[in-house]
């Protein structure tokens, strides 16, 4: 499978990563990805008619906990909230500030 420039840029766009501009790095990336995808060809020889895809990591079912309010002390609540807000690079009045979606 050959990765060309158009496909490479499409994949960058899908991944929300700025496209690589350095021509040398682009060439290496195209070559590496093509080589890796070629390697995957060995799967074509495996007979998988009537085999169901396996998506999870185990035979066990997901177990969900009840979605209920935790009884936390006010200072505990404050700490958890502050810990999260502290990680926002741009914040205002204790809230996350996001860049404009439209110019």
């Amino acid at each position: 499978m050959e990765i060309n420039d158009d496909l490479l840029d499409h994949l960058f766009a899908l991944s929300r990563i700025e496209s690589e501009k350095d021509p040398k790095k682009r060439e290496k990336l195209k070559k590496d990805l093509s080589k890796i995808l070629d390697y995957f060809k060995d799967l074509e020889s495996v007979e998988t008619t009537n085999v169901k895809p396996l998506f999870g990591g185990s035979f066990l079912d997901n177990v969900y906990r009840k979605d209920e309010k935790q009884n936390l002390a006010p200072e505990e609540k404050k700490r958890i909230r502050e810990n999260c807000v502290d990680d926002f690079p741009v914040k205002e009045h204790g809230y996350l500030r996001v860049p404009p979606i439209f110019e």
Partner: protein
Amino acid sequence: MDKNLTIKKFHKGIINGDFSVVEITDEYLKNIENKDSEIGSFLDVYKDEAIKKSKELDEKLKNTKDNLSMMFGVPMAIKDNILVEGKRSTSASKILENYISSYDATVISKLKKDEAVLLGKTNLDEFAMGASTEQSAFKVTKNPIDHERVPGGSSGGSASAVAGNMALGALGSDTGGSIRQPAGFCGIVGLKPTYGSVSRYGLMALASSLDQIGPLAKTVEDAGIIFESISGKDNFDSTSADTIFDDLNNLDSVETKDFTIGVPKEYFVEGLDKKIEKSIYDTIEKFKKAGYKIKEISLPHTKYAVSCYYIILPAEASANLARYDGLRYGGLDSLREGKMNLLSRYLKERGDGFGDEPTRRILLGAFVLSSGYYDAYYSKAQKVRRLMMEDFSMVFDKNKDGVDVILAPVTPTTAFKIGEKKDDPLAMYLSDIFTIPANMAGLPALSLPTGDLVNGLPINFQIIGRYFDEKNILALGHCYENRLK
């Protein structure tokens, strides 16, 4: 310092008053200070807190020495993709250079509850993507046995810290071999638990259907002690299983002599270093002489492991790493002040923040999941994954004279040179061939030294067990380590 100190000996030592917790913590911190500028195991060291905690524990010891946890006072190193509240957790990525964890991972809460001492955070391949720890955005970690060689990866910082006597035990994570392979390259013990045995709450997700947290230690018994402390049901990880592991510090009490050991012929193929092959066969011979039944088995889909894995992993990783958008988790310093719209910010943050390997894998993930390629790649890989899992179910089937454990090599080569494979991603991927299958099937696997060296470099073998059979594989490993090696 006693280089052969183990958790078990440490525990006895503090109870008998042979040494204090502070003394031992201090020795490890001194080793870090003296050696880590050369080895590069640690990204952050919690010197003051470690000393403070150790002093507190010594005070506690004055009052009572009864019912102490086996992890009491044990100086531990933590892979930097596991969250410790109030501390930087970077996953060795520039995109998280400013991220301070807002909570403790469940494994960390458990270690804290058992009164372990946290020495600091260890280096890894960025987001645990790699097999050499060369893909860290911050530094290259060296193998303590030979400084020109890699310690393996992605838990290379944790493995080299334990092997280099800079921690008594460590936590790593294993998605396709990231605990077992570095344990092998550094000549120590590593356990990848059954999928579901250990909560991943607070582990930065790489591939959610494969990731497991596990211990790295000097001995099998120590690995068991750490595993017992971190395992168990957790409501915050919906894949966590309701299984209790106990009494893992008394492995001698587990009877293993009736075990049938399976040897999969597909693991002894071209590409496996001849000296490693010989060492593994010699190991099998030792078990045979000790009276164990050895049986050749077949896991026919083993050769597809790398293809399958490098389709499924990038697919899951591309989704998991979508959360790093520059709006949360710290963000890059260079972009803090820039005025740009939301999309430009995503593109710039992720373009500047991710290194080569995560970028490559995210692109690969986007490809295999994209319309037109999904069936041929992603869906096909998931079908072959089922066949790989069924291979294991067949050989382990108790009703069909199945084996109890599988014995196999961990890596096709010993530790390779720094730089040798860094620019050839496919060559790096192929070195995961023997460790991937256990993750694909979700099975527990223990990596431990055969005791042989090639040019001074250690060789490990792995024991793969049935689901939640950690106790049995640890017991068999312990028996080898103590009596057969």
